[in-house]
């Protein structure tokens, strides 16, 4: 029996889908059988982020409506062991599915997979209610912006009101240079305001755009700082105690020494 985790945020565009794709691929790399469920019916995107858009035959609504069997709608990701995607329907809307149906669906999936990761749509309406219906754990994604943190706070309240206690926070697109000069809220600022446990900090990283262009999750890219951050989040989901990474990659001892003697131009 596995675990159903919903990735949510309230605000759109903070990186829920990217986070879902990377955590899913990361769990698979750790040897866990994983299925990603795109609950954003009508605005599906997890398929393109995963690079699986050309392989969709059936979707989530087809399964719920009994058009096909659950197995038939699952797309196997050939690059990762035991990673599957259940795509959302693109031509229906959020009301095509009820929270009860979602709960039944995820309870079916959780019998066969170690992890069921649900990508929640933005907003707090039907789509959100559907996405959280079958989840036993929630990860809240936010960026260091007033609007995103405000919506995250609202979502945390709604999650707790719906019995999803102790959601964990992912801070996405943190820019260390801006934090340093005091133009971006830092990790402590956000934890202080939201008062929930942190599970990961993902730095703003160009690799994410490049990997999304290609349809390949950055988690398998060893050069990517964001990829490393996702690998750490995955390990924390698996219960490992991983220290938060130093986001200043260019601050190694040699670099510091070089800076001291003026060999490296200061940023």
């Amino acid at each position, binding site marked *: 029996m596995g675990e159903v985790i919903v990735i949510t945020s309230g605000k759109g565009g903070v990186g829920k889908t990217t986070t879902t794709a990377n955590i899913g691929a990361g769990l698979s790399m750790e040897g866990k059988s994983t299925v990603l469920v795109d609950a954003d019916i009508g605005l599906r995107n997890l398929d393109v982020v995963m690079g699986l858009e050309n392989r969709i035959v059936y979707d989530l609504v087809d399964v719920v409506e009994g058009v096909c069997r659950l197995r038939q709608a699952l797309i196997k990701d050939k690059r990762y062991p035991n990673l599957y995607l259940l795509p959302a329907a693109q031509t229906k809307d959020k009301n095509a599915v009820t929270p009860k149906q979602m709960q039944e669906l995820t309870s079916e999936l959780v019998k066969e997979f170690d992890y069921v990761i649900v990508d929640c749509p933005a907003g707090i309406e039907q789509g959100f209610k559907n996405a959280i219906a079958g989840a036993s754990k929630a990860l809240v994604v936010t960026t260091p912006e*007033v609007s995103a943190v405000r919506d995250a706070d609202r979502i945390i309240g709604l999650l707790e009101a719906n019995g999803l206690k102790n959601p964990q926070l992912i801070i996405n697109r943190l820019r260390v240079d801006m934090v340093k000069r*005091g133009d971006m809220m*830092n990790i402590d600022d956000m934890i202080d305001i939201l008062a929930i446990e942190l599970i990961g900090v993902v730095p703003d990283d160009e690799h994410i755009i490049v990997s999304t262009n290609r349809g390949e999750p950055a988690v398998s890219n060893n050069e990517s700082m964001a990829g490393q951050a996702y690998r750490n989040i995955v390990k924390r989901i698996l219960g490992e105690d991983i220290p938060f990474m130093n986001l200043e990659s260019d601050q190694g001892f040699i670099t510091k020494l070089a800076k001291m003697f003026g060999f490296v131009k200061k940023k």
Partner: protein
Amino acid sequence: MDLFKMFSKNDNSKDIAKERLKLVLIHDRANVSPQFLEMIKGEILSVISDYMEIDEEGLEIKLTRTKRDVDGASVPALVANIPIRKMKDERKF
């Protein structure tokens, strides 16, 4: 006051962000609508008007944060600024 502000001016936009966020979250979390505040304002007004004449135009009621005396923790507070024109005749009471 302005001069003082000028010297203590906070250049960090993240501090501004944090303060604004904290204020907006007080309202969000308390689920306090402007109408609700208007209701409180109306009732406070009617009670106080029995005892003193107040400047209704200058009346201001808002939710904010304040430091608790005992431990300095930041807590939400209802702050009312009620300018008094004059006390009503005490002999009546």
